[in-house]
């Protein structure tokens, strides 16, 4: 039997670092996600609005191009908190659809195939695994959210000059923080639905419906009880409230930014608990 003639030499070489090992999962997942035409199409579509915004920034910084337009209109089109909040609303919408498209394929197949023991019999903890999956979504959604946002911010700084950066750096920081908050909420919702529903299409549907249903419930509560705290059940509304505070934009009526942030923190905690309960290496029979 040939196997006796072979035989392994014990490995004495160097090992890659923790970070490199951690990145193995996201790298593979991104590779697979970007093989999907729909993901690429949606990502490309999501770039249209940033390109238009870049054109807008160019226009506002070239006064000669605006000559002939009314003074009132010229004052209206400015790169400020309102501009970035509009940019963020549109990109946030694309992020919802991308998360619903990509999220369900992250956990459901591993759970359906009982593949978790395979991961956890490597030097990889449950939290490493969950974080790696979260990173897949956050990384992918970053491409259509804060990354183009930061490029637009950079473009504006480049065209307007250093004085604009010193006066408005909080817009850039607020935009990145606001997007990251939204991406975290979206990713956790997608992961939780993927952990609970092993059928990808249904999981995607749940990811989308989550926001619409909670928005409807919030509106119903507000209408029936004539209150405004019902908005806190709507994560999209709460995130918007936090964004307004971060960008210095007039917020809509309702609970303040801190209360909304607290509501989001509770929601994310609940979603993390759901994921933690499902990400078990073995089926626990009780």
């Amino acid at each position, binding site marked *: 039997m040939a196997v006796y003639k072979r*035989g392994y030499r014990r490995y004495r*070489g*160097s090992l890659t670092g923790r970070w490199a090992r951690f990145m193995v999962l996201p790298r593979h997942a991104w590779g697979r996600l970007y093989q999907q035409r729909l993901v690429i199409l949606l990502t490309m579509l999501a770039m249209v609005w940033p390109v238009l915004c870049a054109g807008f920034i160019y226009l506002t910084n070239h006064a000669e191009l605006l000559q002939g337009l009314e003074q009132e209109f010229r004052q209206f089109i400015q790169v400020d908190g309102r501009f970035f909040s509009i940019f963020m609303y549109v990109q946030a919408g694309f992020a919802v659809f991308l998360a619903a498209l990509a999220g369900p394929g992250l956990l459901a197949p591993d759970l359906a195939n009982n593949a978790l*023991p395979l991961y956890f019999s490597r030097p990889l903890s449950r939290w490493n695994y969950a974080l790696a999956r979260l990173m897949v979504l956050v990384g992918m959604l970053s491409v259509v959210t804060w990354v183009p946002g930061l490029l637009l911010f950079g473009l504006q700084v480049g065209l307007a000059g250093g004085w604009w950066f010193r006066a408005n750096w909080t817009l850039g920081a607020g935009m990145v923080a606001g997007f990251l908050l939204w991406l975290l909420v979206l990713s956790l919702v997608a992961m939780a639905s993927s952990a609970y529903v092993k059928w990808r299409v249904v999981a995607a549907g749940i990811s989308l419906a989550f926001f619409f249903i909670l928005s409807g419930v919030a509106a119903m509560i507000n209408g029936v009880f004539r209150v405004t705290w019902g908005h806190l059940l709507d994560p999209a509304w709460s995130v918007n409230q936090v964004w307004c505070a971060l960008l210095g934009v007039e917020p809509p009526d309702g609970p303040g930014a801190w209360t909304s942030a607290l509501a989001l923190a509770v929601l994310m905690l609940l979603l993390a608990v759901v994921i933690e309960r499902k990400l078990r290496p073995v089926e626990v*029979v009780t």
Partner: protein
Amino acid sequence: MTGSASAEGYGETGGQANGQRPPAVVFEEVSKFYGEVLGVNRVTLNIPPGITSLVGPNGSGKTTLMNLMTGLIHPDHGRILMRGISPRDPEALMRITGYATQYDTAPRWATGFTFITTGLRLFGYGRSEAEERAWKALERLGLTDAANRKVGAYSKGMRQRVRLAQAIAHDPELLVLDEPLNGLDPLVRAETIDLFRAWAAAGKHVILSSHVLQEVDIISDQVVLIANGMIMAEGAIRDVRDEIEEHPSQYFVHCQDASAVAARLFGEDHVTEIRLNEDRMGMLVMTRDRERFARALGLIALDGHRIDGVMPADENVDALYEYLIGGE
């Protein structure tokens, strides 16, 4: 993460080279409950290197034992040491452990090569090292031709082999394999058993579960019989058999004049039963004392009776299973 220091540290096989006792898999009073359901109860084991088979009916706790060994679940009570490493230190444990579950876990979209390489990258091997090891593991399991085909296109036996390949690819000192021979054709099965033997001969642990008792018989250095979450027996098959006093040992005796030999054996008080073969060329003898039975047979042979062969009839896992678990 430090590089070579860690790798070399994990690479040592323990005290064997220093003249100390070989590293063992130790369970001390280990219990695991799933809510109110018993997983395993007060399990105490000391498994030396070699091939050890976990044998027991469905739901007896074999997979729970394996999950405890690999740190996928932790005991509610008791202590486990896998070659000196606690499963609560997964970083260290997983470097010396190869695990293959009973499930078809390999992703269908990946090629066999990608599947194994990815696993190795998670262990911390660099790309070229991972690829080299993946090829070796695939070669060892006879999968080189199918290496670049998707796992989804593999047959059941090939998927089983690729699972085994990922378990051995990092050269672990401890292999934990849940039903590793399921779905393998006879040739590959024999090669795989040889692989286990080679592994065990190098002072490593191969711990596997199997329902095929004849196979367990052939490959195991020791067995762990488990039923209802409790260990019924542990050790080399013959030693376990010796411990079972309520069932007399059974031997096939092949001889020319079976009736005369049987008559002589009936005179021995340790012989409880004799069943003559229809052709009168042999018999099945049941004895309560193996040593005295051997002596008696020797004397019969010296008296001129031709004894062609003596073979134990129940020194196998089948019999142990029947005696210890069959009545459950």
